[in-house]
């Protein structure tokens, strides 16, 4: 076995185990490739659901929708998360990656699984969409592909846990692990539950597709599958919150308002976040009210509270850091004078605001049993999760990519002007897109149906004009979001191919402490922000609360009008 060596990045002071570094690069690149495929599919979806365009026929549409869901929600994000796990453990804790050989098994299993799954979908006999509800049956290759992918990801999680053990044994950190690594640990724990849950349902479903198992109960499938489907998005939440803390620390030197409170918020994620999966079954007969109410309306709120803590403490930390630098005029000078020209910061902040205001509020509404009846299985649902997974996670990961291109890939960012504009184009269009999707869903437009007009159906439904308007806007802003996504791909691929090559830095046989004041030092710093009042953040939090109360009330009012009582 070859000895571990570390590359010391001259720009950040970060020390990369050279084996781990390669794995991070391969996982990140594989993720971006999936983003490319999923993005092309997104264009097909959006141009078909745009009523005046209706690009694809029904069969092709469902094929494209399946590929879009699998490539975006699983392949892109989980590949990228593997890179994040290796970075937050090996690099931030300055230790070797545990079992790099197993980490390569992780990579290849996920890569082979992703290819098998995609081939099965594109061959046209697995258009079952991401949810793949039984008794709808896909090719056995489809299930096998996802199982291999999930097993690979599970191995990656254990490599991360092993790396924490290595760091603890070698005493490469003092006290607790850094907050960012703790966030990644939270994501890893949720991922382990998620992937075990996925195996528990996908293995029998695979055997069913092979004819070995006679039948799969539809309700049991849905209950088990959502433990995978929704919890996999909770991995994202924990991971992108960790990225917010990382970027706030690295770009502005921000420290959380209270590190203890932030850790407790992550602890609440570990205990309760996965339970939100139950909100997908709120309209299902068969599950008891006790199961639904306890898992969503009680335990889910602990996780929501944790998100509100993070949503307060990250901008609060930024405000405290900015005020310390002298941006103290008025309530929002700290925000006006933030480094908006730096896509690492702008992408992170847009991700935070979109996730909180759009994804967070609508998530609580969807998780309320009575209100869920208004929008269950409507276009509202993808509107909500695009606000969390795309505006929240994907945009945060894009920001992290801009940070890592010079540090990890050792390249200067190509097309810097395009990189500056990209978070605004992508984040701005996604914000409008998600709102109009949810507007159309509130009016009853179905979640997945190829043709909202139900052309040729014996019974026609007269949609209000607003529904067509919102679907038209969905098309327009969806295309704009695809352009924003393409800009990201041009910048990243361009940087790797034609970006100016930067100095590699020294290779050392041992790790040394993080240089004081360096990027790596700021990324791993402990402690709280010095006590500085954060009135701007309090005002933003009050605005969020007012928006939530108003929106909640509007939906209850709307619900009361659905079925008139006499």
């Amino acid at each position, binding site marked *: 076995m070859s000895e571990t060596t570390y590359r010391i990045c001259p720009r950040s002071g970060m020390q990369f185990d050279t084996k781990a570094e390669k794995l991070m690069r391969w996982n990140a690149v594989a993720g971006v490739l999936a983003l490319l495929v999923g993005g092309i599919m997104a264009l097909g979806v959006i141009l078909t659901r745009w009523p005046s365009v209706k690009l694809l026929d029904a069969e092709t549409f469902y094929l494209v929708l399946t590929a879009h869901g699998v490539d975006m929600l699983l392949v892109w994000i989980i590949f990228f998360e593997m890179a994040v796990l290796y970075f937050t453990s090996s690099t931030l804790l300055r230790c070797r990656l545990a079992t790099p050989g197993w980490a390569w098994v992780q990579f290849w299993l996920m890569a082979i699984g992703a290819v098998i799954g995609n081939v099965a979908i594109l061959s046209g006999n697995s258009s079952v969409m991401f949810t793949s509800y039984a008794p709808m049956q896909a090719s056995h290759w489809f299930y096998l592909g996802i199982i291999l992918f999930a097993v690979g990801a599970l191995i990656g999680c254990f490599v991360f*846990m092993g790396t*924490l053990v290595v760091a603890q044994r070698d005493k490469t950190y003092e006290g*607790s*692990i850094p907050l960012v690594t*703790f966030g990644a*640990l*939270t994501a890893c*724990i*949720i991922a*382990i*539950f998620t992937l*075990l*849950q996925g195996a*528990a349902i996908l293995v029998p479903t695979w055997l069913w597709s092979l004819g070995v198992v006679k039948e799969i*109960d539809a*309700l*049991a499938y849905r*209950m*088990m599958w959502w*433990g995978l489907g929704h*919890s996999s998005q909770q991995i994202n939440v924990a991971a992108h919150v960790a990225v917010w803390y990382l970027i706030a620390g690295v770009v502005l030197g921000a420290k959380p308002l209270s590190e203890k409170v932030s*850790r*407790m918020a992550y*602890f609440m994620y*570990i*205990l*309760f976040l*996965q*339970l939100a*999966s*139950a909100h997908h079954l709120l309209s299902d007969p*068969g*599950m*008891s009210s006790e*199961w639904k109410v*306890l*898992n969503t309306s009680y*335990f889910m709120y602990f996780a929501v509270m944790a998100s509100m803590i993070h949503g307060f403490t990250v901008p609060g930390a930024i405000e405290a850091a900015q005020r310390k630098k002298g941006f103290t005029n008025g309530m929002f000078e700290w925000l006006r004078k933030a480094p908006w020209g730096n896509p690492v910061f702008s992408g992170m902040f847009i991700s935070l605001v979109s996730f909180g205001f759009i994804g967070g509020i609508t998530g609580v509404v969807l998780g309320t049993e009575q209100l869920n009846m208004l929008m269950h299985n409507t276009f509202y649902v993808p509107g909500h999760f695009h606000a969390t997974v795309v505006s929240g996670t994907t945009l945060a990961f894009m920001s992290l990519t801009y940070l890592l291109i010079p540090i990890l890939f050792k390249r200067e960012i190509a097309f810097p002007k395009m990189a500056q504009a990209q978070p605004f184009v992508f984040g701005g269009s996604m914000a409008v897109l998600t709102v109009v999707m949810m507007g159309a869903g509130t009016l009853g437009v179905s979640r997945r149906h190829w043709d909202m007009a139900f052309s040729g159906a014996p019974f026609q439904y007269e949609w209000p004009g607003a529904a067509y308007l919102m679907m038209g806007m969905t098309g327009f802003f969806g295309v704009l979001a695809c352009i924003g996504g393409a800009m990201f791909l041009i910048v990243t691929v361009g940087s790797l191919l034609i970006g100016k090559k930067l100095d590699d830095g020294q290779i050392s046989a041992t790790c040394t402490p993080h240089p004081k004041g360096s990027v790596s030092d700021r990324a791993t710093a402990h402690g709280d922000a010095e006590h500085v009042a954060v009135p701007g953040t309090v005002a933003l939090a009050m605005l969020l609360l007012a928006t939530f109360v108003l929106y909640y009330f509007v939906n209850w009012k709307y619900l009361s009008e659905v079925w008139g009582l006499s």
Partner: protein
Amino acid sequence: MAQDDNTAQGDNDIPLMQKILDNHFLLLFLGVTIPAVLYTVWGIVDIMSIPLAK
């Protein structure tokens, strides 16, 4: 020996909650067990309790 005493003293000074948060495998146990019981096992019990149509 004196060093061991110091370490023991230091460990005692660490608040219980921090000890829990620093025990990564305990967190893993809790993070898998709680949803497995409250969501999965309870969900299966609910589904198994549905009477069969006659």
